[in-house]
């Protein structure tokens, strides 16, 4: 019987499982997909593992290394297995799942949630117009092209400059499609700078900042869109509309943590991250339930994600005792969110946070008076810093600020 059950066999789940098995725990990983590695098999571009390993791997290669390591360590990995129900807390954990062998029930000492995230759709952006075919989220188009060998379209407009959208602009161009432009409502690109360079600038694909799509046209198939400039309040400006002919619209509107299981279990959620609230050990408000990866908060790089997930795996391996609430860690000046949301005791704490507005010429991160100088602070790049938390700092709420 497993000591620890990990839900999700993407990079977070695998990294957590490996870390827990290195602590001597018996680990079972469950994943509803037929394959392992989560989203990585469709991310065929390189750039994975640079921070962690110093080499630039593609998504399938990065996932392959984790799958191999988990198997070598004897982690029990089950694909095509969907968790139906969780019970946890008060020392009674129960995981009910259905897989190729039928219904199974596991009673682990700890549960690690690594359920990933989903893409925002057209309805999250409330784009007016007709409902023709040819509108895809960027990740769905990526799966169609890279996994299933399905053509998506010839003349493409991309809404949103998130990383998946930028990567797909290059991918569609290399596959012979004409990418007419990337439309971004913010005055800056939301994806990583390196993707703006190597996915757009390399191929002379226009990036329309402070623009949005105001209409979608076409009956059975998409025939075009209307885009317009937006003002400071992100409202379209009249008479700036421009029609663009296209048969395909890719939506890269950002990712939302997926936490249906966590919510059903009743863990406390953070409305700012969309994920569970955790302490510095990645433990949620329910004893023995941990969270990591993109269901906790959406990461930009898999390297940081697996590092955080390994911490969840190590923590889940130690004997679970009820920890005091401690001090809350709350976002302050120019900070959109902070993880962990609370700190239960003194010691080294790794804090992840994101800037609200770009501070390109440097910033100071201040947490309850503890200061760190940063080269820059931009919303597209998550900030991850280790701080030393003292008993004094735990007296009241700790505020994280980004100061110029």
């Amino acid at each position: 019987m497993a000591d620890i059950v990990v839900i999700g066999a993407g990079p977070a789940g695998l990294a957590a499982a490996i870390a827990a098995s290195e602590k001597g725990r018996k680990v079972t990983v469950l994943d509803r997909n037929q394959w392992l590695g989560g989203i990585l098999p469709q991310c065929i571009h390189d750039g994975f593992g640079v921070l962690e390993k110093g080499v630039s791997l593609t998504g399938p290669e990065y996932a392959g290394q984790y799958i191999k390591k988990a198997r070598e360590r004897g982690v029990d990995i089950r694909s095509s297995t969907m968790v139906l129900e969780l019970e946890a807390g008060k020392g009674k954990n129960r995981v009910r799942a259905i897989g190729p062998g039928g219904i199974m029930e596991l009673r682990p000492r700890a549960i690690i949630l690594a359920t990933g995230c989903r893409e925002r759709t057209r309805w999250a952006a409330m784009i007016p117009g007709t409902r023709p075919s040819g509108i895809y989220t960027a990740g769905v188009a990526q799966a169609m092209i890279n996994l299933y060998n399905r053509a998506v379209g010839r003349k493409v407009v991309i809404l949103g400059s998130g990383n998946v959208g930028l990567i797909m602009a290059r991918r569609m161009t290399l596959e012979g499609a004409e990418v007419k432009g990337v439309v971004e409502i913010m005055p800056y690109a939301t994806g990583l700078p390196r993707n703006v360079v190597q996915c757009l600038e390399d191929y002379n694909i226009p990036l329309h900042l402070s623009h949005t799509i105001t209409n979608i046209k076409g009956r059975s198939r998409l025939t075009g869109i209307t885009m317009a400039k937006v003002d400071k309040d992100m409202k379209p400006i009249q008479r700036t509309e421009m029609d663009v002919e296209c048969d395909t619209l890719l939506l890269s509107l950002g990712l939302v943590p997926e936490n249906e299981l966590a919510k059903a279990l009743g863990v406390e959620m953070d409305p700012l991250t969309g994920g569970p609230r955790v302490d510095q050990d990645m433990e949620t408000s329910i004893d023995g339930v941990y969270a990591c990866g993109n269901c906790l908060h959406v990461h930009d790089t898999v390297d940081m994600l697996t590092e955080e997930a390994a911490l969840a795996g190590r923590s889940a391996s130690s004997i679970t005792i009820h920890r005091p609430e401690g001090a809350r860690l709350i976002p302050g000046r120019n900070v959109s969110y902070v993880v962990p949301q609370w700190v239960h005791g003194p010691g080294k704490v790794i804090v992840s946070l994101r800037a609200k507005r770009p501070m390109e010429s440097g910033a100071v991160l201040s947490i309850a008076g503890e200061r760190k100088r940063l080269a820059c602070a931009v919303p597209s790049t998550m900030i991850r810093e280790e701080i030393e938390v003292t008993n004094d700092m735990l007296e009241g709420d700790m505020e994280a600020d980004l100061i110029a």
Partner: protein
Amino acid sequence: MPEGLKNMREVRCIICPIGCMVRIELENGEVRKISGNQCIRGREYAVEECLDPKRIVCSSILVSGGEWPLVSVRTSKPVSKEKLFLVMEEVRNAKVKAPVTTGDVLIRNVATTSVDIIATKDVPSR
């Protein structure tokens, strides 16, 4: 404009997700001064980006008889930016038989770049 600024170039490093803005001073086609990079690889990248820009090309190749219809691939080393579309043409026309293992060389010396196309994924036989 002062003499020194004429050959100033700014290059956004794409080696890792940090994306440093590296400033390079060139004189007679040679690098004089580099600043803004946080690591040695940023320096190497910026010099190359000024003199001969290169990219890793990632794509996929058709597989027959495999568990998946495609195997993901990449160039074994970065190739000259000018050759990107020549590399893609060869990749698009290639076809391989399952099984394929990560690291297998699927096209040798692609588009006469002296770089190979290698598999980045295992595709077992169906």
